[in-house]
């Protein structure tokens, strides 16, 4: 077993800060009695002189445009949950190390991802793309990896003797003990983890409890340390609170992209694609507004989803400032591998027709693009209809028909019972009698002719059977 642990020391801050691109000063405060004290702050705020422990009023006096948010432990737990869902693409054995970390068992994944270092790099890049700063460590016991991550030890440790050797010089602060125990250990003159291990076990157990001994044994691999397995939910739902209210939609894309990367991890873990993406925009005083992106073909391509979401956001008018985002994906559909030709060269900008249609729909509107197909009807205006792209009914049509049809027949001026359209129209072919449609109330009886005027424009015109000499224009032979 080989364990990789992720330690996120700045999670309280990053839960909010990862939603915006530019780092405006941000401070997270906690309530202590009736005072609000700064708990953590980001670099921009630190440069203005804000320190942890400072009262919030003092912080605001130092920096007027400081964004302040209360520490939200529920959001931190949700973020850790989202990170675990994302990490499911690397391994099936995950464990959440509340409140600030994640443990992944990676021995089975090494071959697929190209070796230990490649996997570490891949995970590190992914975590950065999600907007977190994490420390990674690899060791052969979960607790050992966790302690190494807390200490910031970056080299991978793959066997127990090395782990023992590496854990000894770590400072006592990496141990997760109550504060008074740490103070007592320091009072005994101990400085490093190795010092604790060298003490007699019975005395240590009596002074600090059996649990402390078990803890050290688990870290060094002397006791088994089974971890509860994290099970990803069936449906994807992720949340991102924003550090400040956002009033224009382009700024939302940056935050939404973080959620799309989490979604991609979720889909990779299940080998699935998504067909509908739903983004809820949370407002302070309004009900949430919902944006939806539909796909012709299920996909898990983060770039494609981001560009579709960009088009949709650009067209969307915000009704109120947004303070958070929630993304859902319904219906994760299994994607099977597609066959690729070995020898076709594909330009990197090329897309296939489904992606083109999705992109056009996202910008122009769902109803603005369609295909056409033929219908089995003698009435010319019903012999065709709009249909979803790619559909058709194969019917044999033999008659000469115009390329353009007018949506509604247009009445023509008649001079001496002859039709007129920019000049006198000569009937060159016809009549073709079409009488049909008695079964619904749309029956027609018409004589169709092909007519040409002096400028050699050709039209498809008709007159009603038996009625007055009124001519109608129905099509143009383009």
């Amino acid at each position, binding site marked *: 077993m080989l364990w990789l642990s992720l330690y996120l020391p700045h999670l309280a801050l990053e839960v909010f800060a990862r939603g915006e691109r530019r780092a405006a000063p941000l401070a997270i405060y906690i309530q202590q009695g009736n005072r609000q004290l700064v708990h953590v702050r980001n670099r921009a705020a630190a440069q203005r002189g804000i320190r942890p422990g400072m009262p919030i009023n003092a912080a605001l006096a130092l920096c007027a445009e400081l964004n302040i948010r209360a520490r939200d432990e529920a959001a931190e737990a949700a973020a850790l949950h989202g990170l675990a869902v994302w990490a499911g693409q690397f391994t099936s054995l995950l464990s959440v190390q509340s409140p600030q970390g994640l443990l992944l068992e990676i021995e089975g994944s090494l071959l697929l991802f190209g070796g230990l270092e490649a996997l570490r790099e891949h995970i590190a890049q992914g975590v950065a793309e999600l907007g977190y700063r994490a420390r990674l460590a690899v060791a052969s016991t979960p607790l050992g990896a966790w302690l190494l991550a807390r200490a910031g030890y970056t080299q991978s440790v793959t066997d127990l003797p090395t782990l023992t050797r590496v854990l000894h010089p770590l400072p006592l602060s990496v141990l997760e003990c109550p504060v008074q125990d740490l103070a007592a250990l320091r009072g005994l003159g101990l400085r490093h983890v190795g010092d604790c291990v060298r003490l007699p076990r019975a005395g240590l157990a009596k002074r600090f409890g059996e649990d402390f001994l078990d803890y050290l044994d688990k870290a060094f691999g002397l006791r088994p340390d089974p971890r509860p397995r994290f099970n990803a939910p069936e449906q994807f739902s992720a949340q991102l609170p924003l550090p400040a209210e956002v009033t224009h939609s382009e700024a939302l894309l940056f935050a939404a992209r973080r959620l799309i990367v989490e979604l991609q991890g979720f889909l990779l873990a299940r080998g699935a694609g998504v067909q509908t993406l739903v983004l809820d925009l949370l407002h302070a005083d309004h009900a949430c507004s919902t944006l939806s992106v539909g796909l012709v073909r299920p996909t898990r391509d983060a770039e494609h989803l981001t560009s579709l979401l960009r088009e949709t956001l650009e067209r969307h008018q915000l009704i109120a400032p947004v303070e958070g985002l929630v993304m859902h994906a319904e219906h994760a559909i299994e994607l099977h591998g597609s066959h690729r030709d070995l020898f076709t060269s594909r330009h990197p900008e*090329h897309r296939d*027709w489904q992606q083109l249609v999705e992109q*056009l729909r996202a*910008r122009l509107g769902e109803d603005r693009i*369609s295909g056409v197909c033929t219908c089995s009807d003698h009435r010319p205006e019903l012999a065709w209809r709009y249909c979803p792209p*790619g559909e058709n009914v194969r019917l044999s049509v033999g008659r000469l*028909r115009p390329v*353009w049809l007018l*949506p509604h027949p247009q009445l023509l001026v008649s001079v001496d019972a002859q039709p007129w359209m920019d000049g006198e129209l000569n009937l060159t072919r016809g009549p073709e009698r079409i009488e049909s449609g008695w079964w619904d109330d749309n029956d027609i009886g018409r004589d169709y002719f092909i007519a040409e005027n002096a400028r050699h424009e050709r039209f498809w015109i008709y007159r009603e059977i038996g009625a007055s000499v009124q001519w109608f224009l129905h099509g143009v032979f*383009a």
Partner: protein
Amino acid sequence: MSLDRILQRADIWRGGDHALRDKGAAVQRSVPSGYAELDAQLPGGGWPMGALAELLLEQQGIGEVQLLLPALAQLSRGERWLMWISPPYLPYAPALATAGVELTHMLITRPRTQRDALWAMEQALRSGACAAVLAWLEEPDPQAVRRLQLAAETGGSLGVLFRPLQAAAQASPAALRLQLSAAADGLEVQIIKRRGGWSRQPVRVRRGHAVA
């Protein structure tokens, strides 16, 4: 100095062959229009793939789409699609089906604004998913036409812009420009601009004489 050495120099331009800059897209260079007398005058023997063609006409209904139909039918039977952007009337499915156009590979869109229409044409040309894109746009400016020409090259598609006759006076970056006027038995086609040479006489294309 031998002829081969001269031909290898970088400052020699050869007018006889028009090598399309192949940007990694495996496409055919031109698709036959189906009218022999027109193909004889067009460089490459047909409509140029990976380029923009402009058809300039004064009136509608003289057979301008029928000029393209044999080529469109052939292109639609392949793997790629046809796209119609803002046609003036409804493309009548039975007529297209009779002409041999594969309706399962056809897309029609009517964007609300001119900007959206230009954007849609550029995306469709660039994607390589469409073999031909026909568009009726309101007076695009030369920069827009240049972008469309580049997009057609990237995607290896044929772009066709229908424009009024007055546009003939403007310079345009399109690779092929044809002026169409009506004639008694068909169309008279005057090639205003084409790659690799000047056109000579106008071509008389007879209606219904397409070699399918």
